[in-house]
């Protein structure tokens, strides 16, 4: 599990995140783990593959909300960008964007083995 220091170093707004958790570090770290491990990340890939942009928007929007609340700033920013593009149904290279998302995510999170 990642530590607060590591989160800070990676650019997460730990102070804001902690305050949202009423200062409870254990809670914050637990929720970060849950948030990063959400199966929606995988789902997003699948629906983008299938070309279902409106479903992708729903999933991306939901992820953005949670990651935003957890103040994982770099991940939040890229998810926001994709959400807006999906909302506008822009034709863009979602595949590339999606792999960027996974890349940033993996910095913060390693799947449990």
């Amino acid at each position, binding site marked *: 599990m990642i530590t607060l220091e590591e989160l800070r170093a990676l650019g997460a707004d730990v102070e804001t995140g902690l*305050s*949202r*958790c*009423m200062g*409870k570090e254990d*809670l914050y770290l637990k*929720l970060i783990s*849950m*948030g990063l491990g959400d199966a929606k990340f995988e789902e997003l890939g699948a629906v983008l593959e299938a070309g279902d942009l409106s479903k992708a928007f*729903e999933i991306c*929007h*939901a992820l*953005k*909300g*949670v990651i*935003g*609340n*957890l*103040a994982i700033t770099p991940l*939040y920013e890229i998810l926001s960008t994709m959400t807006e593009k999906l909302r506008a149904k822009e034709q863009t290279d979602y595949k590339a964007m999606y792999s960027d998302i996974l890349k940033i995510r993996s910095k913060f999170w390693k799947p449990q083995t």
Partner: protein
Amino acid sequence: MEDLFERTILIVDDESINRELLGNIIQSEYKVIYAADGKEALEKIHSEGNTISLVLLDLLMPVMNGNEVLKTMNDEGIINEIPVIVLTSEKSSEIESLKLGAADFLTKPYDLPEVILARVRHSIQLFENSKIIHATEFDKLTLLYSPEFFFEYASQFDQRFPDKVMDAVVVNFTRFHLLNELKGRSFGDEILNAMADGIRKALLKTGGIAGRNEADFFYLYVPHDENHNILLDKIKDSLSPLLKPSEIRLRLGVYSDSEHKFAMTQRFDHAVQACNSLRNKTSGDSDICIYDDKMAEKEVFDAHLLQDFEAAIEQKQFQVNYQPKFNIKGDKPVLCSAEALVRWIHPELGFVRPDLFIPLFEENGLVTKLDRYVWEESAKQIRRWKDELGVTIPVSVNVSRVDIAAPDMTDFITKIVKENGLSASEYMLEITESAYTSDSKHIVEVIENLRSLGHKVEMDDFGSGYSSLNMLTSMPIDVLKMDKAFIRNIQPGNKEMKLVELVLDIAKNLGVPVVAEGVET
């Protein structure tokens, strides 16, 4: 046992992390319950609604989203019971939610916990305060305004529209307490609700506001109108499913204050006085009385009469006149008896008409003293005629319904008859028709008692009150006296004549002689 002051917040979000974050913040001050979608949220609201003080509602959820929840809460009226704060990251959805009745909104990502808690506290307080006002603002039964709020709003109305001429109107159901007694309180409540409905419908047309004061007094502050027909009609319409037209007895007191001279409560006092002045109308029609300066004068005049009553009795200012009654069966009319009528010769006011003081004394509990005075004088007068003129002229005295209620009435009459050495047959009693309709059982007992002692009993003013024809068969009376109004307009063949003939017929069948009042020639 639950802490009475513990409040519960319902958190609705499909994301478990969001639920946990919010829950963790909220539980520092409240008890928390959760729902993962709109459907679950409504289930929780339905089952635990009484304990939920506020709902935190995410908008984007599967199955049923936040706005759909709000719509349902609107339809079911719950939106007025529980404040809802919506959680949204989209600016555009805020407006829709607010329109649907959301009390407030919180953005995502979440504000600082202090901000969230403050907004929750604030919304709860606002709702609870408005519920308290709501509880006292309206009369519980009819949901019209309670008196304090009515007067407050009426005064505010004046401030906003200083040039509008408004009427203070008081509506009352005459002798409502009788209705309660005869048909039960829950029927009485139905009547009041029906009147309130009629009033609301009238206000939709006329504008203005209405409140309910005690029992059956309704206060209205409405734009000026000559006769407030719309109001009367709407109330009568609402009452028609519950009562027969003849049973509907409404009276309206109106005070019009074009210059807004008097304070609101004073204006309504005047309207109440106008309304009460219609108290003695026994006719079934609804009536309206508009307060004017004459009323104020009347109030002063009445107070004057009341003050002077005791002195008048002592100084014998009340005089008894004897109106002769003739038997017209033979060739020539023959004097057969006399009716005792009281007159007041007041030292300052001069001759005071009986209709000005008798109803007043009836209302104020003085009539019994007056009547007994008249009874005694009449008995003495019969004695005097016997001693000085050698003739026996029976006299009939008036007995009001209040007199009959006194338990010692028969004893008193027996006493004065004896004191003056009269026989009971020389001392006759006239009981006005309206007395019969109040408490028949007691009256019948009293009358039968008097008749058994030898007195003759007459029913006075027949036709002016509410008696039903079959009452005649159960009342033990010796003479029926028809009210002047009955015979005033008779012409051969017209319906007034037919009615008189009908009464005469009934009376003949009952073996009761009939006297016509007010025959001049």
